[in-house]
């Protein structure tokens, strides 16, 4: 690990000023990803600014009737919060599906959004990786990629975003708030992650030096009828090979409102708007759910060893929406 200086920030303005425009500085939240990447040599910051004690650890009602979640709220506190569990149950489920109890106690909401891919080539500094070393190539395209992207990837990078939390946030139109030296800003989660293209090393639309201060969840009535389903290679404590956050409002057998987002299939949490449009106004049955999934997955471009994800995601969508429809019928 490279040596670094350490600063504890006590207020947001101070944290932003400390970081300045120093490209070798990093904000430290729970450290569950950053410290690990520093051990691997993937991250080599010269300066750490510890933002864990910033007064951003609250979950509060927002003026619009939604929720404002501070950036340093831990995953544990987010998943345990009564309003999250009652109004956005898929978000609580998504957070609980990620990592372990220990890591959820350390990890923060802001850090979760900025965590890096777990692609084995990205985390191995002896290998090429366009995300880590732009222009060096992507061994995953012709290498080990059974858990890589089927949607929105490019020949330059096929890594997936590992967050579970982000998938539920994408489904519920969350907005990321941040602070810079020039003042505050807001980014809808839909615009937060940049398309891969030929710049996979540029991951978010956050301005240089910005500090995430929180996430705003708008009031989403359908979110009260939501769930998160995650498929992984062991029963617990593993990253997804595919996941779905879904919310469904059925009236008289017809889909009145629906939210769908996919995890572990793209470089970002994948909001399935094509499927949502296909479903809205359709009969709430398995055929319609499958047709909607197929419409979304029509643009999937699987690699030789991850074509199973297309089937997996289709089946997941049908299963989760069927469960929600049956719940609504009770």
């Amino acid at each position: 690990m490279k040596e670094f200086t350490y600063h504890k920030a006590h207020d947001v303005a101070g944290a932003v000023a400390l970081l300045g425009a120093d490209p070798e500085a990093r904000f430290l939240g729970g450290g569950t990803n950053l410290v690990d990447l520093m051990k691997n040599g993937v991250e080599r910051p010269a300066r750490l600014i510890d933002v864990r004690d910033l007064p951003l650890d609250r979950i509060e009602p927002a003026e619009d009737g939604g929720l404002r979640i501070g950036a340093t709220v831990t995953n544990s506190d987010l998943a345990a919060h009564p309003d999250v569990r009652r109004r956005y149950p898929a978000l609580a489920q998504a957070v609980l599906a990620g990592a372990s109890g220990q890591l959820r106690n350390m990890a923060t909401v802001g850090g979760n959004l900025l965590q890096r891919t777990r692609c084995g080539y990205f985390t191995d500094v002896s290998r090429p990786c366009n995300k880590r070393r732009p222009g060096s190539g992507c061994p995953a395209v012709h290498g080990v990629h059974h858990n890589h992207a089927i949607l929105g990837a490019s020949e330059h990078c096929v890594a997936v975003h590992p967050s579970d939390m982000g998938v539920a946030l994408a489904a519920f139109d969350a907005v990321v708030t941040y602070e810079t030296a020039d003042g505050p800003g807001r980014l809808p989660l839909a615009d937060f992650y940049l398309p891969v293209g030929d710049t996979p090393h540029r991951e978010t639309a956050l301005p240089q030096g910005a500090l995430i201060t929180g996430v705003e969840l708008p009031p989403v009535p359908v979110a009260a009828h939501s769930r998160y389903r995650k498929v992984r290679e062991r029963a617990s404590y593993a990253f997804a090979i595919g996941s779905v956050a879904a919310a469904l409002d059925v009236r008289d057998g017809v889909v009145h409102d629906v939210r769908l987002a996919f995890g572990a299939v793209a470089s970002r949490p994948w909001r399935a708007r094509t499927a949502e449009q296909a479903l809205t106004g359709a009969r709430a049955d398995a055929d319609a759910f499958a047709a909607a999934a197929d419409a979304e997955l029509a643009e999937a471009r699987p690699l030789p060893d991850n074509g199973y994800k297309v089937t997996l995601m289709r089946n997941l969508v049908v299963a989760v929406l069927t469960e929600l429809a049956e719940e609504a019928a009770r």
Partner: protein
Amino acid sequence: MFPLDTRKKPIMESAPSPTSGTITLHINGEKHTLSVDHRTTLLDALRERLDLTGTKKGCDHGQCGACTVLIDGRRAVSCLQLAVAAEGREITTIEGLADGERLHPVQQAFLDLDGFQCGYCTPGQICSAVAVIEEHAAGWPSAATADVRPEAGPPPLTAEEIRERMSGNLCRCGAYVSIVQAVARAAQPTDQDGAVRTTAGEEAAA
């Protein structure tokens, strides 16, 4: 990374470099002041600097749970916690769980029910289990909880719940069956002398 042995690094206390510093850690009710390179994890500070070797280093990447300690009462992996960032927090390690000669109920349950084989993961398992029981008592749901809405009430601490909540602690010996029973036993209400009043939880967990 390679294990970092900070003892081999010359640390000049009179003129601290900006990449090291003197910190005070609160561990098991005692204050320890030491100079650390900022790269030192809490795990390495405990084991290599403070002779608190009960906390074990397994993977050193947050994937096995062997290094689990309690920080401000919450379980955390000490291998991903920088020591310098742990200043001011209350840290409890496996050495700090017993009350004098009287073992913590979770420690006693692991002994009584053979919740281990080689023992290497055990300190982490026990620290984790102590927190699991408190998290469950506080009403926290888990990924095994069918209905996470608060109106559904706290889920019973079934074997499935215990397995999910303890999934951040790996045991290469595979002592999981006994570990689940030990956690269920420890979660039961006890008499004043520490005896378990009922074995209903163990039966549910079996």
